[in-house]
Every structure is written in structure tokens, then in C-alpha cells.
């Protein structure tokens, strides 16, 4: 099958295809790969083989709502077409998806909890969350494991549906993850999708938004905490092709330790017909120590001036020696001082995820990584 060529804009992907051969092997100079340390991808970007299968378990919903579907024409229409070689390989090497279907007009009170566990070796997998019209659902997807994993999550929010989704990447320190999280919004659909990245040696998340009808409202939230040389890369692409939709993108990252690198690219494209849209994107980073580097590149491309709002912001701040001195001069030990600052920095974004128990769990993982011992925690914070 020949690749679909899309009219060139600055930020929309040029090639969309399920065939890996339609994409060159990246060499690192390409715009979308220039921040990624390719040598640490464990070959995912070249010609990988599937050596294992991820274990995907779904809890919180009746088993009859979960199916395994092969990648036929029907499924292709319901998932995002790959825009890079890794994604194309992931469908070639795992040509099926776990599909969770929520019927129209159902409100699920329980959280749907999905666990994607990737064993050692290279594996590929796909998840589709199909939300019917007027349905309301909350789904939390947790990625764990040790290997190199490439895959996708497609969230198809039907007309007037309300979807709260969270994707938490907490693989082991040596793991590599390249994942796409695609949100597709029907008429007046409302989606809040949060990405939380903590784990891995290299984690590269491509979060994309597509509107199929007017009135969609997408809230994208992101939190990443990288330390000890981790590479966390988040690339957002919101494609405003429909009128009167809204997008709001907020990513916050904290970095600690020499060699740690985070990348945030926020591309928003407002196409000529997308009048009356409202979009805002912001990335804030907090650098906790010397030698950690945060790259942050917001891009807003407007093909129409008839918008309600369009803006972006990016700022990287440091937790500096003077702040540390001030807190310590009040008796607060260094680790607790860092914890206070990081907790303060992440508090609002965690609250906004709207996923029960998630803020506490994520903060305690980060506390641990900041070296806050249980004892000190008990005595001081409570």
C-alpha cells in the first residue's frame, strides 16, 4: 500500500502509513529525531523484531467489553495511522489490538485499570478505548516492565462523551518505550488525557489529538520526572481541523542529576477551516541540579485568524542555591527542601488529572526518588 501524502504544513506529519518501508531509518538530523539519543533506542527505529509479547490486563469492566481484534480495514479506521517508522513497525509486528468498548450512554463509576507489562526483550502492543456517544468513563493505563516496547493507545471519544484518561509510564530504569497516545474527539466530546512519565532509560511519547466534528474539548496534561541520566521526550501534536473546538495542553517536568535530558515539543496546527477554536499550550520545567537539560519548543501554526484564542508559553526555572539555603536555614533538610519544591510544582497538575488516588501514588514515587526517607517523612511532613 502506498503512503498517504498529506499537504505540507510546518508541523503536520508528511507521511502516514502502516508500512515501515515508507519511512527512512532516522539518522538523528531529522527535525523529529534531533533530540532523541538513537543509540539508546535498542534498535526500535531500525528493523526491530518482536521477541516477546506484552501482557495486557484490564480490570474494572466486564470481560465481555474487552476484545482482541486484528488489524483489518475496520480496525485501521479506528486507530491512528503511524507517522513514523517505529509506529509502523509496531503494527507490522503486533497486528492486533486490545479493544475496550464502552457502549453509548453508559456511565461507569469504576475506574478501568489497564496494565501493560512488557517483558525483557523487544515487544509491541496496542490498546484501543472506544467510548460510545454520551458515555462517561475514566481509564488509567499503567506501563511497566523491563524491555524495549513500542505501541499505541487510541482513545476514540464518541459524540458528547466524557473521557478521563491517564497513561502512566513507570517502566524499569533500563527500559525503552516509544508510544503514541492518540485522542480522537467526536462532536462535543470532552477528553482529559494525562501522561505521566517516571520510568525508563528512554521514554518517547507522541501525544496527538484529532477532531472529527465541531465542539470537541481536549485537555492534555503531562508530568515528567527524570533523574540520573534518563531521557524523557514528549511530543504533542494537536490538529485543529474542525471549527469551534478547544485544546489546552499543560506539561510540567522536573529534572535532577547530570546527563538527565527532557524534551517537550508542542505543535498546534490550526487549519484554515478551524474557525472559532480556542487553544493554549504551556510547558514548565524545573531543573533541580546542574548538568540536567530541558529542551522546550512550543509551535503554534495558524492558518486562520478567526480564533477565540491561541497562545503558548514555555519556561524553565531552576531550583537554585539561594532557595535551598533559605529552606535549609529554617531547619529543613536538603531532601525535604527538594521534596517541598517538587511537590509544590506538581500539585496542581496532579490534581487536575481527576484520577482517584493517582496524585498521592505519583508523589510518593517521586518522594522516594528524591531520597526522602520514611523516617524524615514521618517526622516532618505528615
Amino acid at each position, binding site marked *: 500500500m502506498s503512503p498517504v501524502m498529506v499537504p505540507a504544513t510546518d508541523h503536520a506529519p508528511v507521511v502516514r502509513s502502516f508500512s515501515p518501508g515508507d519511512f527512512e531509518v532516522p539518522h538523528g538530523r531529522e527535525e523529529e529525531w534531533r533530540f532523541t539519543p538513537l543509540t539508546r533506542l535498542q534498535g526500535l527505529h531500525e528493523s526491530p523484531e518482536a521477541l516477546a509479547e506484552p501482557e495486557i490486563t484490564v480490570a474494572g469492566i466486564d470481560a465481555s467489553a474487552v476484545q482482541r481484534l486484528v488489524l483489518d480495514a475496520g480496525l485501521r479506521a479506528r486507530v491512528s495511522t503511524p507517522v513514523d517508522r517505529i509506529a509502523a513497525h509496531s503494527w507490522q509486528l503486533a497486528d492486533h489490538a486490545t479493544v475496550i468498548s464502552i457502549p453509548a450512554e453508559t456511565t461507569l463509576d469504576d475506574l478501568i485499570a489497564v496494565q501493560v507489562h512488557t517483558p525483557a526483550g523487544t515487544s509491541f502492543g496496542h490498546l484501543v478505548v472506544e467510548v460510545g456517544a454520551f458515555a462517561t468513563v475514566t481509564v488509567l493505563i499503567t506501563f511497566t516492565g523491563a524491555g524495549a516496547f513500542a505501541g499505541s493507545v487510541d482513545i476514540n471519544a464518541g459524540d458528547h462523551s466524557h473521557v478521563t484518561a491517564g497513561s502512566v509510564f513507570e517502566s524499569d530504569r533500563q527500559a525503552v518505550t516509544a508510544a503514541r497516545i492518540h485522542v480522537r474527539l467526536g462532536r462535543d466530546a470532552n477528553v482529559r488525557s494525562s501522561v505521566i512519565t517516571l520510568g525508563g532509560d528512554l521514554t518517547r511519547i507522541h501525544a496527538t489529538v484529532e477532531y472529527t466534528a465541531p465542539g470537541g474539548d481536549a485537555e492534555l496534561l503531562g508530568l515528567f520526572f527524570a533523574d540520573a541520566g534518563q531521557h524523557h521526550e514528549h511530543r504533542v501534536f494537536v490538529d485543529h481541523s474542525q471549527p469551534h473546538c478547544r485544546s489546552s495542553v499543560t506539561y510540567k517536568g522536573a529534572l535532577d542529576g547530570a546527563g538527565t535530558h527532557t524534551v517537550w515539543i508542542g505543535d498546534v496546527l490550526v487549519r484554515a477551516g478551524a474557525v472559532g477554536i480556542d487553544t493554549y499550550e504551556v510547558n514548565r520545567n*524545573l531543573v533541580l541540579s546542574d548538568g540536567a537539560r530541558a529542551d522546550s519548543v512550543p509551535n503554534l501554526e495558524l492558518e486562520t485568524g478567526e480564533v477565540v484564542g491561541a497562545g503558548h508559553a514555555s519556561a524553565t*526555572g531552576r531550583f537554585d*542555591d*539561594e*532557595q535551598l*539555603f*533559605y*529552606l*535549609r*536555614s*529554617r*531547619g*529543613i*533538610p*536538603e531532601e*525535604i527542601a527538594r521534596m*517541598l*519544591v517538587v*511537590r*509544590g*510544582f506538581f*500539585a496542581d497538575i496532579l490534581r487536575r488529572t481527576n484520577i482517584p488516588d493517582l496524585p498521592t501514588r505519583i508523589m510518593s514515587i517521586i518522594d522516594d526518588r528524591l531520597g526522602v526517607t520514611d523516617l524524615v517523612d514521618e*517526622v*516532618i*511532613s*505528615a
Partner: protein
Amino acid sequence: MSTLEIRNLHAAVETDAGPEPILRGVDLTVVGGQTHAVMGPNGSGKSTLAYVIAGHPKYKVTAGSITLDGVDVLEMTIDERARAGLFLAMQYPVEIPGVSVSNFLRTSVGAIRGEAPKLRLWLKEMKDAMAALSIDPTFAERNVNEGFSGGEKKRHEILQLELLKPKIAVLDETDSGLDVDALRVVSEGVNRFRESGDTGTLLITHYTRILRYITPDFVHVFVDGRIVESGGPELATQLEDEGYERFIALAQKEGATP
């Protein structure tokens, strides 16, 4: 009763051009119950003295000693010094984005007292302490020093002083940048602290204005990195009338004959 003892203290600041000596032999003893005013011209090294006591990493002690009740302060980390009972109200308090005043205060009080205060009691304690300093209750939810005016920052420093109840407090130009009303409110806070027990106060100032509200037991004139003259409150009056010129000349003369 606590004693802070500073002996022959020499310290240098780390600059790009290497260490630059600032403190040149400071001798000072502050005993609980006493208030000492250290007065000197700008650039004489007063803040450096305050920072060295608190353990700021930019300053290196090159000679001399500081002890608190006989224990070597210079061996302690910054936070250990605070937990040992030292407090510094800073001339330029630092903004801490993302950390609310209430969270900061509770963590700090917990660290100093050794256990987190019980939430209900704590809220009342904080509210009362803020009211005494005419600090708007909404400040509890604001980020530490972020967007505070000069006067608000100084009140917030004194709020910490009153909540942390140190053995020895160093107040670095707490009076600067305050209008008359704020100066009175802040001074009342310092006086409450002084009367709260056998606490020692080292009041660093450039002007005599604050000494109308806070009467010191001892006044030291600080020039060129050391104390050149000490006396009672009358020395402050003399400084108000004459300025620092005579002492600067004196320091230069002494400096010329090592």
C-alpha cells in the same frame, strides 16, 4: 540560657576572581536575654557576618570560631544550625515558587520542633501569629515570598521568628524598606520574641531608627569587616549625631598598623 560566641572570625566570599576576604577578626558574644545591635556602613560586611553564622555556602571561614553553648557551629550543616536554635531573618528573603507559606511554615516548624505539629492546633497557632503581625490570612496560601512587597517579606521573616522560637536570632536589616507603621508592627514582633524567654538577639542595622522601638543592651560599630567600638545604647545616639566617619577613619588607622 544560650550563648553564641564568635571569636576572631575571618571569612571570605567566593568570587570569580577567587576568595575575597570580608570579615577580619570579629569578636562578639551574645547571651540569652541580651539584645546586641550591630551597626555599620553599607558594604562593611554585616550581611556576611549573618550569612556565615547561618552557614551560607558562598562564604568560607578562614580563621576563628563560632560556638553555640560550647558546640562548634561551623561543623554543622545549614539545617543543623537552625535546628540547634539559630535563626536568620534575611535582608533579602528568597522567593520559593510552588511552595505555599502554610506548607513551608508547617514543615519548618516540624523540622525545628522534631515533630509535625497537630493540624488543628497548628492552624490556630499560625493564624494567631499572622494576625499579630497584621498579615492577611490569604498569605498562607501564597507562595513563599513570591510577589511579596518589601514590607510583606520582612513581616514574613518575623512571623517565622515567632513560630520557630530560636535561642539566638540574627536580624539582618529587618527595618530597611519599611514604612513607619510596618516598622512598628515588625518591632513589636521582635519585642514579643525578646520577652518570650531567655532569647538572644543580634540586630543588624544601618540606621538607628529601629532602635527607637527595640532598645539594645549593647551597640557595636562594625566597619571594614570587624567591630571597631562597643558600648551601650548611648553609642547609637552618638552614631545618629555623628555618622560613621570617625569610625571609618579609626578603622583605616588600625588597619594600617597590623
